[in-house]
């Protein structure tokens, strides 16, 4: 009696194709049935199988960074910059001007676009504007002098 399960398992491992074909047929049948009855849960993949939808178990990558809202203002003349691997960086541009222009633009454009400014932190060669992100978090806009221009970076909040 103790041997019977092992024999059956060995047989299945030795001859997997019939079982797979049978499983495929069952899945097709279930799929057809679900289409008929309109229950999408029957076709949903098991949660432990790979899915096209990112999940919390996927390691952070540039693809997981928060998206910039469509209403987010972009400074005239700004050129999109390549994003670093850091997933907390949401967007980045450069402008060929140094000084207060980028800070001034966003200090007024952000509230006009509906983003409440939580704090203004001007300085000598860089400035930070903290503002409310759409999901209730706070993001930062960093304007910093880089060579003869200014790099503008939107990123999640940090101290």
């Amino acid at each position: 009696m103790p041997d019977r399960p092992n024999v059956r398992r060995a047989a299945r491992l030795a001859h997997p194709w019939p079982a797979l074909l049978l499983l495929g047929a069952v899945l097709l049948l279930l799929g057809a049935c679900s289409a008929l009855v309109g229950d999408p849960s029957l076709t949903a993949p098991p949660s432990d199988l790979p899915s096209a939808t990112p999940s919390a178990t996927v390691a952070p990558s540039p693809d997981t960074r928060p998206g910039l809202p469509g209403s987010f203002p972009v400074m005239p003349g700004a050129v999109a910059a390549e994003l670093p691997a850091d997933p907390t960086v949401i967007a980045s541009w450069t402008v060929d001007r140094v000084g207060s222009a980028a800070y001034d633009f966003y200090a007024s454009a952000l509230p006009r676009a509906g983003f409440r400014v939580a704090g203004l932190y001007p300085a000598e060669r860089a400035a930070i504007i903290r503002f409310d992100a759409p999901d209730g978090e706070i993001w930062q806009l960093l304007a910093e002098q880089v060579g003869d221009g200014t790099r503008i970076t939107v990123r999640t909040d940090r101290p």
Partner: protein
Amino acid sequence: MIARFFIGLGFALAASVANAGSTFATDDYTLPFYDPAVSLSYGVDRDPRACYQLDWTGTLWHDCNLHYGRVYDGHTGADYPMSLGSPVAAARDGAVVDLFEGYGTQQFGTYGNYVLVSHADGRRTLYYHLAQNGALVSVGQAVHAGQGIASSGCSGQCYGAHLHFEMRKSTSGSWVPVDPIFEQRYTTNPGRVPFLAAYIRESNAGTEVIERYSTVTHWVEFKNTGGRTWRNNTGVGRILLGTWNPAQHSSPFKAADWGSTWFATNVDQSAVGPDGIGRFTFGLHADVTPGSYDEDFNLLANSLRWFDYARLGSFHVPIYVITNTSQ
């Protein structure tokens, strides 16, 4: 040790500790502007090493990043966000020893337009990034604490209009930037604006009912929430109560004890330090047609600046004048 001790403490607690045992003086430095809502953008980096930043709370950051409200690497002063044209005040009595006001808002030099003030304690204060032609003083001129000396701007290296306030002291023959907080030179930490008050109470918070041709005595108390000591025996900076809305209007309720048609009284006490309560006692004489009146008053630092009336509590005295029954 002291730096580590401050880790995690807030402004208020740090203030009380920083001032403990110091040569604290009630007429010491105050913040160089008037709006108490202005907060620190970046303070002094007290660690001279590159990419090591020791901020005013005692936190040591081992990076080169900006830390808003705290510090950025190599910073020698305190940055305060101030919109263009905002008044900049002298942090303490002193004399102007240098200034420049020729730069526009492009990036010229590092500090742009500035005013440099020398103080009797041997320290100097600098006010950077000022507006073009924004100086209100001249070299050699004596200035009083809280006196407007310039308009703020964004000259020099400037990402966003702000005031860079710097304190220096002479060390081994050269002027070295120091942190006012750790110099223990602020009246509070990180300092208070020079002139600010909050209404506490008055002799009659309701309507003063006055018989025509008679006088009543009224007093009002304010808390000194600013950084300067209130005095009643100095010329410039003496704290007095005057008519408001509009300022310095001739009052129909001027009594015999008033200094002028609009100047009701000085503060009663000879000195009221920060957090002290100052009382202002004055007469109200009714020489007007019976009826309802309302007289507004505000505090004035003589020859320097009116207080913020709204933050003062919008002090006014409702008055009802009745017919004199004895005549």
